[in-house]
Each structure stands twice: as structure tokens, then as C-alpha cells.
């Protein structure tokens, strides 16, 4: 069941930027694109654990700051020649607030 949880205002994240949400099982990176779409994926690159929230956001992709792997924010899949993926979580914006699916986050913590 989807349980939408308010984690902050859309304006808390700069356009083409990210912030993290701390959970018991590590950080989730919440991204805001240039056209104000919001995506949530794990904040650790499967390659060497780089913080994806610190990457450059372009279109609906992010480039890991450590070794430049590129991930689709929509699917969490690594792009191009690299293979790998991070978990992605349902996120949406309602009345300027960012909502994450708390049930998915909780399952992540339990896993």
C-alpha cells in the first residue's frame, strides 16, 4: 500500500539539484529536475558507493561525482556502457510539497 509522506517543500531542493533523506538503511537522494519533476533513488552508486545526490543533474539523469557513471532518475538504471542499478522510490509533488512513498522506504529499511 502506498503511504505518501511529506518530506519537505519542493523549493528545499534547487532545480537540477538534490537533497538527501536519511533512513535507517542509508540515505535516499531526492532530485528536482529543471522542469520541477521529483525523483527519489538510493544515494549510493553501485560502483564505489559515490553519493549520487552530489552529482550533476542533466535532463532526467544524474552523473555520479566520483567516477561519472550516469543513472536514469526515472528507472535507477545505469546508462551507457556501465551496467548496474540503484533502487528508485515513488515520489511526487502536491501543492508544492514533496511526497515519498513511506511504505517503500520502510520495506527498504527492513530489507
Amino acid at each position, binding site marked *: 500500500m502506498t503511504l505518501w*509522506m511529506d*518530506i*519537505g517543500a519542493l523549493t*528545499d*531542493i*534547487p*532545480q*537540477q*539539484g538534490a*537533497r*538527501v*533523506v*536519511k*533512513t*535507517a*538503511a542509508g*540515505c535516499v537522494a*531526492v532530485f528536482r*529536475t*529543471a*522542469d520541477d519533476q521529483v525523483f527519489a533513488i538510493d544515494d549510493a552508486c553501485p560502483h*564505489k*558507493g*559515490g*553519493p549520487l545526490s*552530489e*552529482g*550533476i*543533474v*542533466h*535532463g*532526467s539523469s544524474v*552523473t555520479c*561525482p*566520483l567516477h*561519472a557513471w*550516469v543513472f536514469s532518475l526515472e528507472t535507477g538504471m545505469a546508462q551507457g556502457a556501465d551496467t548496474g542499478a540503484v533502487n528508485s522510490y515513488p515520489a511526487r509533488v502536491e501543492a508544492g510539497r514533496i511526497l515519498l512513498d*513511506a511504505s517503500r*522506504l*520502510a520495506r*527498504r*529499511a527492513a530489507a
Partner: protein
Amino acid sequence: MKQKLVVIGAGMASGRVLEQLTETAPDAFDITLFNAEPRGNYNRIMLSPVLSGEKTYVEIITHDDAWYAARGVKTVLGQAVTKIDRAAKTVTSAGVETPYDQLIIATGSAPFIIPVPGHKLSGVVTYRDLEDTNAMIAAAKPGAKAVVIGGGLLGLEAAAGMQLRGMEVVVIHLMGHLMERQLDPAAGYLLQKSLEQRGMKIHCKGATKAILGKDRVEAVLLEDGTVYDADIVCMAVGIRPEVRLANDAHLDVGRGITVNDAMQTSDPAIWAVGECVEHDKQLFGLVAPLYDQAKVLAQALLGQAAAFRPVQTATKLKVTGCDLFSAGDFADAPGREDIVFRDPARGVYKRLVIEGDKLIGAVMYGDTADGNWFFGLIKDGSDITTMRETLIFGPAYQGGATADPTAAVAALPPSAEICGCNGVCKGKIVEAVLAGANTLDLVRSTTKASASCGTCTGLVEQVMAVTLGDGFTANANPAMCKCTDHTHEDVRRLIKAGSLKSIPAVMQELGWKSVGGCASCRPALNYYLLADWPTEYQDDRQSRFVNERNHANIQKDGTYSVVPRMWGGVTTPAELRAIADAADKYDVPMVKVTGGQRIDLLGVKKADLPAMWADLNAAGMVSGHAYSKGLRTVKTCVGSEFCRFGTQDSTGLGIKLEKLLWGSWTPAKVKLGVSGCPRNCAEATCKDIGVICVDSGYEISVAGAAGMDVRETEFLIKARTEAEAMEIIAAFVQLYRENSRYLHRIYKWVAKVGLDWCRAQVEDPATRRALYDRFMLSQSVYQTDPWAELSQPDQLAQWAPMADLSLEAAE
């Protein structure tokens, strides 16, 4: 006996139904037409030309009184139907009941009104019927001000119409680009630019907060605080199906009146057609599917089998001078590919969206001549594999079996324009090539083709290839990144030539192939723009690599290193104490002396950065920019102050140089060294810029390296005084800032442009002074301590997680 047919609404759809019925079966029905507007059917989509004055109302009437009379259609105009009694099979209008055997609801749609304060003021209109149009025409006195809310198809047509009537028009649009349902951002941008060039003001991302005015409208207030004066406000933010009658009659209604394939509602005697219907969960706003519905409905009424199947529709904007076409589906999605053609100088943009072997969408701006051909390919689902390479050039190039792009260019007549900026035709390029211009640069310099915006470079090369055959080799200089075909050098040149002052403007004007660039071009563009337009461009933090964005070096574990500046490598006991205190307070795992004569605090957590910076600031220290493509350190030896061999005060000069240069952004990092004598203890001769002090002055050498490449600096010039040395070095740094490609260290750049050229620039007093002045202008903006800025109380939140769910999630 004739059946009684009642039609509610005289719009374009019902008009078409009446035509079909009266043509195919003139005697089948006794028809009564009700219309709330005091007139019969007219071509509503031609209201725009009426508004702009290009047509009159009379010219757009489709069915006049004589037409109805000739076909025995009884008309009740200016009188709304208020009730449908399904049991009695009657409709009520002005208290009079009219019986029906078959009923057609064609009530169309109602404009959406945003319920902001003031929406009921006099002077606020929608754009739906002739009354609205006439209200806008009445308000149109030259110099009068109009605000249109909504930058969709209808809103822009209203805006253009009022502008043609001499009004000053502002369009407020909620979304990021105009006509977002029909256009992608690139085409929306071109449209906006073209409308702005005609003097229209476009305000995207604008949310209306209130319409201001006492008795009638005076101004519009936006959420962002902007106020636009207005004598008339036109709301064109969308429409919704007019379903009130159907609702009251308890017909099945979703978003529109639900109909089956035969356009029949949930009551078999009641039919619906046009914008008020919902078929297969879909609503319809464009005229083509409505005409299809009308045809189906007429057949169904006559007992023939017919089924409505919505087909793809195409949109054209009816604004004189704005050639715009869109059809099909052009959203980005997995498995879809784009073919894009841009010629920004001519204002031409074409984008084809391909899925598998089919064309599924097309957006065109500026040159829409081939629109219908593309639309045909979309509608028919044609396999485009064989013509894919030349598809974007349109039907003219699909004749022969060889779908070779150069064949298309070869087929162009000599008079075909290749370079729109400079008006160079193919013949002229061929002529130049035959006269010996066998490289792109030569063609550029002799014909000016592709020398301005550069978008036609590919075409020019194709013309050269066709002319030279095997003798042609394409430009070997690689493109900046996958997002563009331009080289770094081209992009720098075009940014200056075109006065491009923002990343989106560069991407648009130079035809970027990606949305939002990539991690490789965005930092480069950000640098080029801030270097070229120091006072106008606003540094884009989100286009910077993490180290420059966070003003600290990210380490492999996601922690950061903090390096305070130590001017010329000189520190004090107080500074050392403050550094030691900070290391203790924030549990710094490692304190290390760097090669650049300063101290590195490694392993700092991101959330601790601002507090640590504030502590170091309080002790008088600023950021050492150990993370930047910018001035890093000036390494010095102790010089004449203490050293028995020292010839000049090398430490003092080093400090002065560091204080002059710190905070400047450069294409790649810049390290300096100042040695007090030729023994060179500061290792100045392997730095980007090195100074060796001698008795007679200062020997300045440049382009050293001690990294992946190791090389000794080369002598640039000798300065007599400290002041002269400083001016030369600042001028040289500015020369590098203005001319190098991003990420090239000075030695790589000098290898490209030549040391002699560099020397000539800084030797000439006037050129040197101008470079120095431009450097100082940039410093007046950028020589600030980021630590002080980013540790302010209002900046603190961004360094911490936006939410902490670790406790909740654990439960």
C-alpha cells in the same frame, strides 16, 4: 412519418451533422436547431482572423438563414435549452417544450475560468465565441494594454490578434514553455522568441494570483509579485466539456458525455457530438476528429453501421508569421529516437520522433511545408526504415533508391541557401572549393559560410565532400561532448559572437542535442559564460562539479577535505591554533601538509562544513580553493627577508600575487611559484606560472607542469618592478581565461596558441592593460570568500539532510 430531430448547439460539429443529414437524406428528419448564441453555425476556429481584423464575422459564417430555410431546418437562436425530459422526450427552452424522437447534444465546451480574486470584474473575458471576440476588439485602442492568461493555442491566437489591433500584449503562461501540449521545449522557445521579437511580452512559469481593479480590470498580479497593467484580460487557460444538460438528465457523464462508437449516449434516443463528448476515455478539441464524429453520427441516425475511430490529429497555429506544426506523440520515452534539424538563425526547427520503424510524432517550427507529408506517415504508420537518413529533408528527397544524405545535398541547386546567417548559397561554396579552399576554415574565411552560428557546418562539409570527392577530410577537431557537434573553440567563439548569456540560450542557439546537457558540457559552459560575461551572467551552482558546488574536495567515502588559504605559504601561531581547534572540534581524522604550502583537513562530514568554515573565518582565514578550477596556491621561498641568497622579497611578491589572483575561475587549476633566486627553492619552473627573482627584476616564465606531464616553464617576459610583474601575470591569466578550452592547463593551451602569440599580447602595453582591466572587473564580482557566504544562517539548511526518517523507518 418524419422523425423529429432536435439539435442543441450550433457549433462546428453539429453544423457538419446537419450538412451530412440534409445532403444524404433530406426528408428523413424534421430538424429543430437550438443555439444559446444568437446566431447559427459559424467557423469558430476562424475567430482568430476576425479578432486580428484579417476577416469579418460574415466571412466565417458557414450556415446562414437562407441555408437553414432551404433545408427546412427550424432555428431557435439566442435561447438556451434548459432541460431535457427523457421520459417525455422533450426539451425545454424559454419555458416552451419541444418534443423529439432523436436528440443530439452538441453543447461544445465552456472555457475554464481560474477562480482568482477579481475574475468577475468587467473587462475579463474568455476566448470562445463572437461575444468574447467583439469585447476584445472593442477594447483594442492603440496603446491599450491586454493581458492574456494562458499560452496555449487559443491564448496565443488571442494575444496575436489583439496585438495586430495595436494593443500592448502580455501573455502569462503557467508552464515552462508555450503550447506545452503541442510543442517540445525547443520549439516553444523559438515560438516565444519570435513572438517577443514582434513586441509581445511572454511571461512563462507565471501563476496568476489576482486580477486587480475597482469597477473594471486594471491590472493582473502574479504569485511572484509581478504586476501587469491591463485594460482587458483574456483567460484562455483551457476548456472543459459543457455537460450540465446531460448531467441534469442523468445521462452517463465522465469528463464529457459518454458515447459509444456510434456517438450514442446511455439513452439510445440521445446522441452527442463534438467537444462535449468523451469517447473511449478521450476528449476532443480539434476540428478534424469532430468532423469524423459528425459523419459517423449522421450515418448512425440514418440506421447505417458506422463507428468512430479517433485518428491522429495535427495542430497548426493560426498566427500570421508563426509557422508551426505539430502532430502525433513527441514525448520522450524509452525506445523512441529523435531526428532533429535546427537552423536557429533562420528560426527553423524540425523534430521527428521515431519508434521502431515508424514515425510517431513531428514538431516543426519556421518551415512547416512538409508537415502534411509527415502527418501522412504518422497516420498511415508507414515503415520509414528505407528513408530514415533523409527523412527530415521531406518528400523532395525520397525519390531515388539511394537514400544517401550527400546525394540530397548533391541534388540541391547551386542557388540553394546553405548558410542562413550569411546568405551563402551552395554555388558560392562550390566555387570557393574549386578555387582552392579545401578546408572548412578556408571555406569559412573566403565565403563566411558557417562562420556565424555554425549550425550549418555539417551541410557545408557535405557540400565540400560532394565537390572534392575523396580529397575531402572532415574537421579533425572533436566535438565538445555528445550533446553537440561543436568544438570547445567553436562554442567559445559563438558565445561571444552571438552574445549568448545563459546555458539554455547556448544550448538552444547552438542546437544542443540533449535536454539539459551532460556532466561534461555543463561545467564548461558555466565557465565560458562567467568568464565572458562576468557582470551579466549568474554563476550556475548546479552546473558545477561537486567540489566547486560544495567548496570542498569530495573524498572516496563521501567526506570532504577543507583547506584554508595560507597566503604565500605563510601562517601565524593564531591561525595554526584555530586550525588545530577545528580539527579537534570536528573529529578530523587526518591533518596533512600539502605540496602547496598549506594544511589540509581531511575526512570532514558535509553537515559540519559550514560550522567549520565559520570557525576558520572567525580566525581570519578564507577558503583556499583547493578544489577549484581556479587559482590554487602561490608557493614561495623565504627570499631576501631571511635568505642570504635572496635577491628580492619573493615571499612578499607571492603573497601579493595570491591576494591579487585568489577567487578567479580559470579553465583548469592554476598554480604559481615565486623563487627569490635562480636556486629556485619554490620550484617555480614547473608551475603554470613561475617567477624567478634576479637582481635586475623578475623573470616570468609560464606553461610548466608537474603532474601527468612534467615540463619546465618557458620564459615569457621580464619585469622590472613588482607592480609590472603583477600586471603582466594578471593579464596573462586573463588571456588564458578568455581563450583556453575548459580543463586545459596553461601548458596545453600555450602549446595550441603558441608562446609567441601570448608574449605579443602581454608585451603590448595597451593590450596588457586591457586584459588586466578585464581581469579586475571579473575579480570585482568573483573575488569573494565562498565560506563566508555559505556559512550564513540562511544557507545552513542545504548542508543537512532534508528529512531524517531513520527513527520512523526503524519502527
